[in-house]
């Protein structure tokens, strides 16, 4: 590698995004307020339940239960999480195919937190020009205090973000007290500090580099793009005219003057570049760094409105639309994604609304697999795992069906009383005289029947009875 040769390492160029106001910025502030409102306040929402904690959303790992308002998710329901992830993935495919990187620009927590950190930066240090000046100025008390205050506020935001995350996993008010009195679980401290660090580094320091270099979604979303996908784009024909963009000068002031001189509508003010959080120039076309945040649209619209030339020099369009061709949203691809998405949502919804109120699983005791009894019969033992997912106690009677003449013995338990949201293991013994020279495995069924609460219905679970080959 000689001097002057190309290097694979590119040093980051500092970006000082300028603030902007407009349609999309307002929408984005709205989404940010909603998302933050939900994220930071949800753990504090109390909820009345017959049994269980009084926190509306609580992921109780110790008790293996997730509480979501009136829904209690048990360990067996964990496949719902897979369903949720599938829906999220399909939704991403669907939306990205139609409207491009909407997730990146409006909803991604990297974007939301970077917005917050930039807001703090702006409030403390001023807008773009002031920040550039401050960075270039020599070390002074003013510089140190402004920079210090920025980082302090960043750190506090990051810390509260991390702490809030841990509040979802324990009783929030108690955990908060424990956290600061030093008696919280180690996992709470580790999680808080880890998320504080990642939030601070990602939203404060790394910013657009996360989207450009680290994020896998950013890369594979481009696969879902096609010529009909909505993208943020610069209207080259209008902006460049016949002879390219041109600054506003005395001779090129009014639109008619400019059109006669062949100058486009773009006055090359650079506002769209200054507001870009990833530091690109949208006029160079669609680029991998673009997160579709639409702030350049707001910037350009502000200028165009003030000039009275009409908006949308930069705007949402599609490749086909920009080329003057008709553009469709509903194509086999988007319809296909839409249908699969609807099917996934419907099946998850069905599964959640039809959560079994009682569960039973049967495990045969395998050590020993069978025992011979003094009267020549064979005994197999089973562990029945019974779970009551309702919020009222239930009495269960254990029965069996399918082995004629077999005896079921559950000791002296007349019925098994199960407290709400509790599970129990019960040992059941089955004794059977084969009598017909049978050997090997025979199938039968355990039934549990709820007493009084007949609306719960009978639950069945298959089991096998093992008969040893040896004859008496």
């Amino acid at each position: 590698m000689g001097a002057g040769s190309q290097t694979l390492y590119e040093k980051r160029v500092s970006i000082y995004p300028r603030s902007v106001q407009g349609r999309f910025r307002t929408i984005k502030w709205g989404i940010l307020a909603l998302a933050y409102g939900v994220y930071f306040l949800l753990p504090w929402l109390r909820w009345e339940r017959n049994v269980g904690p009084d926190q509306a959303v609580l992921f109780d790992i110790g008790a293996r239960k997730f509480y979501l308002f009136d829904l209690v998710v048990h360990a067996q329901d964990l496949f719902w999480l897979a369903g949720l992830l599938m829906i999220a993935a399909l939704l991403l495919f669907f939306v990205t195919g139609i409207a491009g990187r909407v997730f990146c620009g409006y909803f991604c927590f990297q974007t939301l937190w970077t917005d917050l950190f930039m807001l703090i930066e702006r409030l403390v240090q001023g807008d773009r020009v002031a920040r550039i000046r401050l960075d270039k100025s020599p070390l002074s008390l003013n510089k140190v205090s402004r920079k210090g205050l920025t980082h302090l506020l960043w750190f506090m935001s990051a810390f509260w973000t991390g702490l809030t995350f841990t509040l979802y996993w324990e009783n929030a008010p108690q955990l908060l007290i424990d956290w600061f009195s030093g008696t919280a679980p180690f996992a709470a401290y580790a999680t808080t500090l880890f998320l504080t660090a990642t939030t601070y580094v990602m939203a404060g320091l790394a910013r657009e580099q996360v989207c450009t270099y680290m994020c896998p979604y950013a890369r594979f979303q481009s696969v879902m793009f096609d010529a009909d996908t909505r993208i943020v784009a610069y209207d080259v024909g209008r902006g460049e005219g016949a002879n390219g963009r041109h600054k506003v000068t005395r001779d090129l002031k009014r639109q008619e003057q400019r059109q006669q001189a062949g100058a486009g509508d773009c006055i090359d003010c650079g506002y769209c570049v200054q507001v870009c959080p990833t530091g690109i120039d949208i006029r160079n076309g669609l680029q991998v760094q673009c997160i579709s945040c639409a702030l350049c649209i707001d910037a350009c619209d502000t200028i165009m409105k003030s000039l009275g030339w009409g908006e949308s020099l930069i705007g949402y369009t599609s490749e086909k639309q920009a080329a003057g061709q008709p553009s469709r949203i509903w194509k086999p691809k988007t319809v296909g994604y839409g249908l699969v998405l609807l099917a996934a949502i419907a099946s998850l919804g069905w599964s959640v609304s039809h959560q079994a109120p009682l569960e039973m699983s049967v495990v045969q005791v395998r050590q020993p697999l069978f025992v011979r009894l003094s009267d020549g019969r064979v005994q197999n033992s089973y562990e029945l795992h019974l779970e009551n997912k309702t919020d009222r106690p239930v009495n269960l009677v254990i029965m069996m069906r399918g082995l004629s003449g077999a005896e079921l013995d559950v000791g002296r338990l007349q019925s098994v009383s199960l407290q709400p949201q509790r599970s129990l293991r019960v040992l059941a013994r089955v004794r059977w005289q084969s009598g017909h020279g049978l050997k090997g495995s025979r199938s039968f069924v355990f039934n549990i029947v709820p007493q009084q609460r007949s609306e719960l219905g009978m639950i069945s679970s298959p089991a096998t009875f093992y008969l040893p080959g040896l004859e008496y």
Partner: protein
Amino acid sequence: MSEKKSSSQSAVQTTGHAWDGDLQEFNNPLPNWWLWSFYATVVFAILYWLIYPAWPVGGSYTKGIMNNITFVDGEGQEVTMHWNTRALLLKDLQEGKGALLSQEYMDKVAEASYTDILGDAEMMAFTRSVANGLFGDNCAACHGAGGTGVMALFPNIADDDWLWGGSVQDIENSIANGHLGFMPGFDGVFDEQQLDDVATFVLGLSGHEVDSSATTRGEHIFNSEAGGCYYCHTKAGSGLKSQGSANLTDKIWTIVDVNAAEGIEAKKALVKQVVTRGVKREMPHWSDRLSATQIKLLTVYVHELSGGQ
């Protein structure tokens, strides 16, 4: 902004030295993030040495500061010592969340009667889960993990045949006080004919098809002073739980595997072997090794292996 060009990156820096005219050394310093991470690990290590036990000093070691752990040792003494994982474990076993919950159940079971425990699904589930560990630690070495024992040596306690009684009181007594199972050998007492007759009679007790005249002779030996077998096995052959003598009328054999033998002669040979050699088995007592509650848990566990009596 998208065109990032900077002269400082395109040229590789050198240390500025030149040897033999043109031999230069590239200057590629470690990235700052790497360097500062390294410094951070150094600081961490020093703090660690202060807080945790770290350096060997002669026959001892530095104990660390402000890291005392207080726990109750095996003798009930409160001990305070420097941080170590064993003390941490002992403390957790006494004061941890799981330990306290377990203790709560343990106290409940300790106070409950056998009838209460056997009729309560929750206490039964707790008993089974705790006693499974106790059984594995203390009993499984002889009786096997599932309680099926070893033929001739350790009885099967998962079946419904009880030498010393299968009620909870009997089982508790067996575990707490142990047993000495003894049957004298009749080698030299019986002649070959008598031995054969007794064995025939014994097989007949459990429903085997046997020669009736030999059975009659055998019964006479069994139930008279000639053999005296009925002292322990009773005249009906059903055994006495006070003696731990086997019930000969059922299909369970604990010394020789009569069920597995093919043909009546082979079965008879096995029975004769027991009569000739006698039996001596011992189970130790556990009252001074296990607490009363532990014995209680094991009693319920063993009782439930077969359903008890």
